[in-house]
């Protein structure tokens, strides 16, 4: 029932401006400030596919209790331009306060109850700060409305910006605070104060969480071609690779096809490797993904969805590629597909995928999407929770056979450079030694061998949470969801008129049919919630368990679900 409280106070702050105004950074710093106070955060970032100009918007929801998604109803809006006010007027709560750049005040002053001019540009100039620091003045004004003392405002802002000029930003925040202090503004009645805090709490997006999960599991190479929304993994790891202690290398090759074929070569050499891309880039990798399957290469691919088909809507989100990754690569071969729903799950998915890919010598996919790849949230990353696993070593006895027909399907793994071992890897179907074959008997044996591994894997995995069930376990109504929709569903569940069971599918392949059936069989109402047109998880559930969902709430306009909107849709079905 933890996720179904109606009494929780959630506050939402919007920061809007043009691309290049540092809107994303302002949101991240604000999330860090609330993190320091012990609050939980969810920060989304909305932007078009342009480098300069165009509306950028950070939206941060905070609460002293756990929060899983951001909300559209805004308490405080910090607007660097007039457009940011106009675009978000409809989202303002009754008593919302808008701080708008002085120069645009006349344009928007009559649009709402509490629209306040804030000379962000002037204060910034006075302090000889760069224009991107304007938002810091807004953060100071926000501190007043949130109920912080001027001292706490200064202290928190200075600390959050310590790497970007702590004193300067502290001074700008003071200016913002003082400017609005005397004005008669509705302050948050609950105030904002420090709450007990787990010191491991950090603000992180799922792409970085994946990168950190890889590092925790010993990643040695990351090879990727840039494509939104996967690119920040490459950026983060490229920076990490500058630290020689990491023993990490990153490569940006000429295209996605090269990236994955190079990665398979790295895996053959014995090094832990991953690649990452958006679904369009993964479409280019199909033949090589199948190659990883037949050659039994331990390879991890991060696939971050954005709205397709084709180039689609590059900077918007989607859950439209579940069935694509489940069936990716020609031919039949076992794979791992994990679809994390938040940063903590993304971290564990990356570590688990890397370790299990080596243990079982199979390709693994981590399926995320723009919404969690680029949204930041409060998370505790716990390396101790990563499943351990490493390759079955060769005993150095007798002749080495790369594809030995072992009982559990897992052949001992040796790498080139091993004395007395001839290591033959091939994209052809092959015999145990690794020589191409078209002998039907051997072809069948090798197919069976590879699928034997997935049985062994499924058995090991059944001890972990492949499916997460929460909410009211005795309810006869269940919400079924996966991936990034988790955040909005858990937030919406706080606003439902009756308690329901919440069923999140985390592992798509292998699929835990037994637990899915246990959680969903006999329910009088199953409502699936997915960010796609066809209800792809519903189809998977039916394929694996024969269970039909009764209602589908589907969103495929390239935007993530909004908790309140989703709650009213669910309530209409309850």
């Amino acid at each position, binding site marked *: 029932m933890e996720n179904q409280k109606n009494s929780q106070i959630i506050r939402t702050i919007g920061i809007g401006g043009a691309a290049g105004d540092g809107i994303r950074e302002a949101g991240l710093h604000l999330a860090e400030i609330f993190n320091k106070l012990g609050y939980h955060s969810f920060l989304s970032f909305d932007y078009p596919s342009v480098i300069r100009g165009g509306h950028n918007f950070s939206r941060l929801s905070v609460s002293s209790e756990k929060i899983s998604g951001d909300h559209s109803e805004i308490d405080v809006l910090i607007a660097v331009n007039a457009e940011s006010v106009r675009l978000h007027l409809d989202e303002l709560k009754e008593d919302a306060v808008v701080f708008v750049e002085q120069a645009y005040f006349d344009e928007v002053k009559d649009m709402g109850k509490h629209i306040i001019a804030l000379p962000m540009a002037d204060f910034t100039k006075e302090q000889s700060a760069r224009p991107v620091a304007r938002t810091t003045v807004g953060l100071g004004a926000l501190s007043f409305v949130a109920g912080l003392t001027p001292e706490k405002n200064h202290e928190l802002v200075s600390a959050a910006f310590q790497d970007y000029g702590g004193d300067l930003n502290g001074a700008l925040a003071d200016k913002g605070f003082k400017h609005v202090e005397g004005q008669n503004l509705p302050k948050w009645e609950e105030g904002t104060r420090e709450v007990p805090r787990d010191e491991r709490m950090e603000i992180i997006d799922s792409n970085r969480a994946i990168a950190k999960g890889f590092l925790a599991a010993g990643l040695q190479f990351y090879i990727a071609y840039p494509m939104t929304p996967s690119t920040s993994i490459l950026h983060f790891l490229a920076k990490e690779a500058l630290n020689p202690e990491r023993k990490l290398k990153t490569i940006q090759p000429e295209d996605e096809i090269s990236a994955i074929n190079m990665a398979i070569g790295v895996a053959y050499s014995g090094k832990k490797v991953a690649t990452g891309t958006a679904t369009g880039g993964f479409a280019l990798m199909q033949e090589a993904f199948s190659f990883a399957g037949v050659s039994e290469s331990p390879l991890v691919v991060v696939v971050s969805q954005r709205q397709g088909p084709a180039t689609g809507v590059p900077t918007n989100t989607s859950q439209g590629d579940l069935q694509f990754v489940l069936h990716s690569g020609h031919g039949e071969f076992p794979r791992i597909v994990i679809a994390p729903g938040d940063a903590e799950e993304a971290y564990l998915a990356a570590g688990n995928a890397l370790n299990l890919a080596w243990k079982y010598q199979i390709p693994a996919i981590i399926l995320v999407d723009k919404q969690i790849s680029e949204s930041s949230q409060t998370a505790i990353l716990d390396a101790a929770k990563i499943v351990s696993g490493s390759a079955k070593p060769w005993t150095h006895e007798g002749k080495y056979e790369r594809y030995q027909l072992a009982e559990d399907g897992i052949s001992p793994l040796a790498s*080139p450079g091993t004395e007395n071992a001839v290591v*033959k890897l091939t994209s052809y179907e092959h015999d145990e030694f690794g020589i191409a074959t078209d002998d039907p008997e051997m072809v069948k044996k090798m197919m069976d061998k590879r699928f034997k591994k997935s049985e062994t894997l499924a058995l090991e995995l059944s001890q972990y949470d492949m499916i997460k069930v929460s909410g009211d376990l005795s309810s006869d109504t269940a919400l079924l969801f996966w991936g990034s929709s988790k955040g909005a569903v858990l937030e919406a569940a706080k606003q439902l008129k009756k308690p329901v069971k919440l069923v999140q599918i985390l592992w798509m392949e292998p699929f835990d049919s037994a637990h899915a059936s246990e959680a969903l069989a006999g329910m009088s109402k199953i409502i699936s919630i997915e960010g796609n047109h066809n209800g792809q998880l519903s189809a998977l559930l039916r394929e694996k368990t024969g269970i039909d969902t009764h209602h589908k709430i589907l969103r495929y306009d390239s935007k993530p679900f909004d908790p309140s909107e989703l709650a009213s849709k669910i309530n209409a079905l309850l």
Partner: protein
Amino acid sequence: MELATKSKISWCPGCPNATILVAYRKAITELCAEGKLKIENLVSAAGIGCHGKITDYLNTNTFEALHGRVVSSATGIKVGNRDLEVVAFTGDGDSFSEGFSHLLHAAERNVGISVFLHNNETFALTTGQATFLSPKGFKGPSTPGGDTDEPMNPLLILLAMGATFVARTYALDIEGTKRIMKDAMNHKGFAFVEIIQPCITFFDTREHFKDSVEWLPVDFPRQDLTAAMNKVREVSEKTPVGIFYQIQKPTFEERM
């Protein structure tokens, strides 16, 4: 050292792919005997096409890649373990039609691998279509009226892309091919060797090359890029073979 496998050779009887295999085995044997190579550190990679069958006939570490992608995979193997000696066999269909960009980028990066191009000027395994290296007028099942395109000049392109070792040899000259292979494998950096390999079934050029192949003079200026480019561009009765260009530059794996 047993370098053959149990696999039965399935190239056409008399195919010069077999003489390339013989030259390669000799090169490996000699490099090991000279203490320049440990057999367990050798990876023989190949793409898809007639040339690619070579991996089945080699009792060494082998990596049979996807069509057109052997150079990318070979790059991955080399950066994964710099102690490995990585040879990538490829064909004119395999690296000049499919996957062309990988070859160019690997040359530009100066990855420390050797690429041996079996140039038979046709897609042989799919029964003789034109590749981008087939001569103008080439008649195959997909170009019954004759190919209308001028062929690419593989060595000129590789020189332009910055390959640090560029050579050509003739498959039926086993000793010469072995020597060039050894020099390429001893070269630190990206080595590219075009091996002229007549396809005796679909495009038999043995008669033409029998007398036209001519080794470069011993004093050919190997460090002169302009001289190399002019030489590989030369139109003449003779087909020059040998090492056109060889310089030292930091390799990709060193710079990483």
